[in-house]
């Protein structure tokens, strides 16, 4: 098997990113959603905690088992901000890599068909494997970069705004780091894997997004539900969850790669 032509891969990634940066319909959700989830929401919670100390003991009592134990151990005025910014927002954070990778993958795969640029691309001297890899990286790398940048903003905003209440840095925790470094990229790859499969059938970005949404939305709810508890679990469990997502994502991408051939795509152009 020949070596990957990285120059060609870089050219495709750079082209896709340049094109995407100029598409408002793609850029706006990629900026607005992380801004709301990772900046505005934690800032509002932290501001709220500075001005009031609501009693959340009734909410904590409803959490199963020992999940609430680390929160209950905190002073009452710290409980709200630590619960929301330290734990409850974490699963929502996973929406960012999932959404960004899905949007970019739909644009990279189904978008080429919709814009009728795929045939020109297939007539170029780039191996199918390299083109597929470039399309994956063009969606995966920005998804991870935006997630990490978003988390950095989230950590800064949470710690700075909550400083008058906590007088210490409380984000990131060790589990947060596992989420950022391991689970979030896995989730980005999962979104990618789903969209690769879906885009093979869809003729437009919108169609791909709709089909992909049908698959991804339940995954989001599942992730949100599971991750609420995930952050209160141990690091090894979080690692295992991330590994499972990685396996599913890689299987989906692998299946997509097998079908990503000129001979399969050209008749549908």
């Amino acid at each position: 098997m020949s070596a990957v032509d990285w120059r060609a891969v870089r050219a495709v990634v750079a082209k896709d990113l340049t094109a995407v940066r100029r598409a408002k319909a793609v850029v706006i959700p990629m900026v607005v959603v992380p801004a709301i989830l990772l900046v505005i929401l934690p800032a509002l919670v932290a501001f709220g905690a500075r001005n009031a100390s609501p009693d959340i003991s009734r909410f904590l009592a409803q959490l199963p088992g020992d999940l609430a134990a680390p929160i209950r151990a905190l002073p009452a005025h710290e409980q709200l901000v630590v619960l929301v910014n330290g734990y409850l927002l974490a699963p929502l954070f996973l929406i960012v890599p999932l959404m960004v990778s899905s949007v970019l993958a739909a644009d990279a795969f189904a978008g080429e068909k919709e814009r009728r640029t795929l045939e020109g691309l297939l007539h170029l001297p780039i191996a199918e494997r390299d083109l597929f890899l470039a399309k994956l990286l063009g969606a995966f790398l920005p998804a991870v970069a935006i997630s990490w940048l978003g988390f950095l903003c989230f950590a800064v905003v949470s710690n700075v705004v909550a400083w008058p209440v906590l007088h210490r840095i409380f984000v990131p925790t060790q589990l947060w780091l596992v989420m950022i470094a391991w689970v979030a990229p896995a989730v980005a790859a999962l979104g990618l894997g789903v969209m690769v499969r879906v885009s093979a059938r869809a003729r437009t970005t919108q169609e791909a997004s709709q089909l992909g949404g049908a698959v991804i939305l339940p995954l989001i709810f599942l992730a949100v539900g599971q991750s609420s508890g995930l952050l209160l679990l141990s690091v090894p469990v979080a690692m295992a969850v991330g590994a499972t997502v990685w396996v599913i994502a890689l299987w989906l991408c692998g299946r997509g790669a097998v079908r990503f051939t000129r001979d399969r795509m050209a008749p549908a152009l």
Partner: protein
Amino acid sequence: MTSPAIVAERLGRRLGPDFALEGITFDAQPGEVVALLGPNGAGKTTTVRLLNGLLLPGGGRARVLGLDPATEGEALRRRTGVLTENAGLDDRLSALENLVFTGRIRGMASAEATRRAQELLERFGLGDRAERPVQGASTGQRRRIALARALLHDPEVLFLDEPTSGLDPAGTRDVVELIASLARERGRTVLLCTHFLGEAHRLASRVVLLAEGRLRAFGRPEDLARELWPALAVDLDLGGPASAATVELARSCAGVVGVEATATGAQAQVVDRSAVPILVGTLVSREVPVFAAVPRPPTLEDLYFALQTAPAEPGP
């Protein structure tokens, strides 16, 4: 003898239940322009896709520049340039960015790709809009940008699908001259898919005629015409319909194989041009006034429509 730049032998491929390309056989020599003609859905685009390795053949074989498109597609595509039916430009990128991207994939350094792209865009009169997004460009401008992209790496074989579609007359003339000079002066081989028969007539030395996925004919238009119409038609302007006696007189001339009266005189079928002065001389000597005698060799259009209804060429 040089080996052909393009060879297709009984090339075929089924695409879905409704279309199949079958038994396509033709070749193109280095420096030759071959026109691929046929109505929409005849199989022109499928043929190009097979020859450039986008589709795997279901039957037969192809060689382009000595390479097998099915197994050596990547190496082949480095040496071919394609103008697709749809310009296929990314609207969000500028003309220059579209071209430089292609150059980068083709292994050109960024500076070299930029220089070459600017040169070609200038050549096609697009220098002033090189940096502007393709979105907003007219159909003709898109066509020229896409043609510049196909020529960026100076390919040895060009597959051009409707290169003058959407161009104004001046742009059409420019592109036709460019294609002719690429073949004649640079030795580039061009497979020209077109609906413009005049363009094909002007550029191509041989034509491939397809219909419904089958090969109807391949060869020089003159040879194909001779096969279809062994005789040459000559319009005789006699100032009015020829009388029965005049028709009989014309028929009796050497080299004349048939005569029919027309509104302005007669149309004679002769074996070749040398029969025309004999025919005219005979008529004039019998005091039949001949105002004009114009040979009417069949045009590519005559050939195209006649062959569309001809049976498909049998496979070897």
